[in-house]
């Protein structure tokens, strides 16, 4: 794969818990980016959101991190990063992206002498199609942040079921402007297993085997995660992005 742009895929999210579906995103995205002939995927990062995000049913980040690590133990290219979850307050996606981008560049420069700008790995945000619709939610995203996430970095978006990311792009001037920076990956397998469904099944004592790795299922049982109680956590809390006022970047 000589002459290709090295690429790292970053997935931000709750991972509450991580499932096979999340891990499929990476596999699908890697295949797709390789098939463009332009990229060589050199790494993947799972970055679970911090507890201050305030989403309903979000269990402690130490658990979500542990489960993600268990799930990705056998992966030779995707790893888990706890920087985002260790920050004091909820951290905007663009801030997380800047952190990883700078970290990757620094790592690269320290190992090369002299460094070639074109060989520094690029970073793109990996997400599902439902993520594209979040750009529309009032006050959830700052415009300048969306501009930077999509325009400076780029998105790799994996479609799922009947969700149409094309439409989300079409309905947004900002996204349409950066159409070239958005890679749409089609998931042909009709698979709607989500973390929400997994939590529901667990609450009802139903089996989730084959939806997540056995090691994660064992962890969930050992720590008795995902009960009626855990699901109502943050019920009356407002999602942090909606309340946070960032004065400076």
């Amino acid at each position, binding site marked *: 794969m000589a002459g290709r742009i090295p690429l790292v895929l970053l997935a931000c999210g709750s991972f509450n818990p991580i499932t*096979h*579906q999340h*891990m*499929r995103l990476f*596999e*699908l995205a*890697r*295949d797709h980016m390789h098939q463009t002939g332009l990229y060589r995927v050199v790494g993947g990062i799972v970055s679970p959101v911090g507890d201050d995000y305030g989403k309903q049913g979000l269990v402690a980040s130490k658990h979500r991190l542990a489960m993600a690590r268990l799930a990705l133990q*056998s992966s030779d290219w995707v790893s888990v990063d706890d920087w985002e979850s260790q920050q004091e307050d909820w951290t905007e996606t663009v801030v997380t992206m800047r952190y990883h981008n700078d970290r990757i560049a620094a790592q690269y420069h320290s190992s090369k002498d002299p460094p070639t700008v074109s060989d520094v790995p690029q970073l793109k945000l990996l997400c599902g199609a439902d993520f594209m619709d979040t750009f529309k939610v009032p006050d959830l995203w700052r415009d300048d942040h969306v501009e930077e996430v999509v325009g400076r970095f780029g998105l790799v978006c994996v479609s799922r*079921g009947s969700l149409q990311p094309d439409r989300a792009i079409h309905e947004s001037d900002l996204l349409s402007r950066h159409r070239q920076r958005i890679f749409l990956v089609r998931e*042909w*397998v*009709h*698979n*709607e*297993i*989500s973390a929400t*469904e997994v939590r529901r099944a667990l609450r009802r004592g*139903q*089996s989730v*085997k*084959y*939806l997540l790795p*056995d090691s994660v299922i064992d962890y969930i049982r050992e720590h008795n995660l995902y009960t009626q109680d855990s699901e109502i956590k943050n019920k009356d809390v407002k999602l942090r992005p909606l309340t946070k006022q960032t004065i400076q970047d």
Partner: protein
Amino acid sequence: MSSQEKTKVVLLACGSFNPITNMHLRMFELARDHLEDTGRYRVVKGIISPVGDGYKKKGLIEACHRLEMARLATLNSDWITVDDWESQQLEWVETAKVVRWEHLEIMHHAEHISSENNNDEVDTVRCGKRRKLGQNTIICQSSSYINPKEDTPHLNLLCGADVLESFGVPNLWKPEDIEEIVGRYGVACITRYGSDPEKFINQSDVLYKHRKNIHMVREWVTNEISATHVRRALRRGQSVRYLLPDPVVRYIQEHSLYSAESEQKNADAVLAPLQRYTSTN
């Protein structure tokens, strides 16, 4: 209801398993949850019975590989096992015969256990011996059905709605086989969200007659990892990781299974049941 009063159930899934996927395995879990949730059943065992090469389905790779992949996939399961009897037969075996065979195995096992408990002289005809008797012995004739002891597990065919609907395809099933499977045994059928399984049962007299033996397991969340899709992805060098258990993915890579070539296998052959039933008409 105490554990003793619940009816024991064994779930049997027949199919190509070409290859086995997480979806096949999920079917067992969903069916078990559904049956046990009624409070009337206790699912004690799951059996995967891959079809023999004689089925002649297009793209069907050798049974030895399909068996091994199924075994690798069930290593981590404490209740689902693989049975190679069907795939070892030289010619294709009707599903009804496989069901009868498995039923006999279950009965033998139950009798063996109860004889042991009674300290009787046990007729230790081992499964292996019976296996070598071949496919056309009396065990495969429906008239040889012996009424099981009271606590012998009930055998249910586990399948997707597409199998139930295939009962309507001409020359694919013998009517008496359908009657036997749903009438004498039972079916646990996984239905897709959005489909209307009751309608299909209603439209078929034989299914309607035995509707009490047909358990419709609603799959509320779509999970359609088809083996066809998996084979297509493999042909194109795409990843199938997390669609099948890791050991199965590794096995496929090690043996370079599923290529454009393997997909052409049996391209000119006639599916065994169609061959058999049209020629005997």
